[in-house]
């Protein structure tokens, strides 16, 4: 084991690298289905990874990592789900979920910093999921209204009914993310 002198500069550089690295990890999370298929449905672990960004990197760095992920995706790197990317994602109704990752990483990070217990981590993850669904679904509805000038027949309830399908899976994954983050935190802290 080597001893490292942790200077101000070093922690700045490390933060920078962490943000870049987590955005790359998000890309893996978004496309993990190309490695493994669970129950025949391609799944994305984006929310799972976004929660972990908040739990492991902390509120500020975690949120920065998610903002950066959105940025490189828009710049054309195929980091979003299904290896998509590019500025056209901006007009996709599901872009709200990508934006929600920024907010949820900040919120989960804050809660986990305040209550560093298993319960605290799981609760933080659940708050993250609520932000993800709340923000993402409202954005999706607004996007349909605005970009596609959806007629009256497309109701607010329809948008939510759509989201009810993946909810049970996400709920399980979120609790898992909380426990997972708690287990991982002391291990990765060694490298921070």
């Amino acid at each position, binding site marked *: 084991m080597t001893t490292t002198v942790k200077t101000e500069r070093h922690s700045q550089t490390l933060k920078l690298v962490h943000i870049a690295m987590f955005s790359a990890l998000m890309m893996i999370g978004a496309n993990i289905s190309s490695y493994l298929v669970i129950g025949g449905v391609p799944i994305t672990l984006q929310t799972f990874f976004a929660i972990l960004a908040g739990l492991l990197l902390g509120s500020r760095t975690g949120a920065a990592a998610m903002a950066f992920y959105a940025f490189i995706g828009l710049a054309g790197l195929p980091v979003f789900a299904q290896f998509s990317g590019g500025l056209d994602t901006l007009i996709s109704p599901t872009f709200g979920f990508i934006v929600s990752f920024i907010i949820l990483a900040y919120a989960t990070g804050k809660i986990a910093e305040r209550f560093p217990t298993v319960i605290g981590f799981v609760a933080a993850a659940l708050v993250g999921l609520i932000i993800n669904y709340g923000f993402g679904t409202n954005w999706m509805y607004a996007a*349909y209204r605005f970009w596609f000038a*959806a007629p009256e027949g497309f109701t607010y309830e329809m948008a939510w009914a759509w989201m009810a399908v993946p909810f049970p899976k996400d709920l399980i994954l979120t609790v898992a993310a909380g426990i997972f983050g708690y287990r991982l935190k002391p291990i990765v802290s060694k490298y921070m």
Partner: protein
Amino acid sequence: MMEKMIFGRYIPGDSFVHQLDPRAKILFVFLFIAVVFIANNAVTYALLLAFTLLVIVLSKIRLYFLINGLKPVLILLIFTFLLHIFFTREGDVLLEIGFIEVYEEGLRQGIFISIRFLVLVFITSILTLTTSPISITDGTEVLLHPFKRLKLPVHELALMMSISLRFIPTLMDETGKILKAQTARGSDISSGPLKERLRAVTPLLIPLFVSAFKRAEDLATAMEVRGYRGGEGRTRYRQLEWAGRDTAVLLVLAVFAGLLWYFRT
């Protein structure tokens, strides 16, 4: 697939659009997104479509790549079209099958909104197809420069972009390796009840995260050792050059916006 990862969706070429300054292209796309909303009747939508076709021709991007990029959003496009067909109740009834009635206005709106969507996807795709991610980063760095006053870390953004470009293939490799290693140890992710499979994901993700954090620490140390000290005093290898054609392209867009405005009702 690795190649796809490294270069993003960029297709190298030497067309007029490829040669434009990334700053001009980024500005063009952002302005275009606003211009699209001026169109509101048949003439203006036709103009919009013609203009987009012109850009496609100039970019010399094979239609195949554009259609390919459209695939993920195709369902969305169809869904939106149907939404308009079935839910708009204005104008004359064109078609009546049982309880389904298709109105004239619904069909019109459906076609218009589909064109708007198509045009937006094409133009934004062309930006990423003709501009390498690194150029886009350089361009954005310069365009965002004024925001440096608001403490936006413009230089760091560009640096992190290069780092994650480097990390993406490494982490993909790593994921594949860990997956194989765990499968060899008898971990089964592809069968059994959902709970079991989720449990099997843990031995996959723990090594992935730990190794990623370890790599990050190594890289940060390596950067320090090589004297990285932020953006001050840095000189650049890649230089951006704003040419006459870049100004011309933005002027053409302005004229086009005026034309749309003239024909809109």
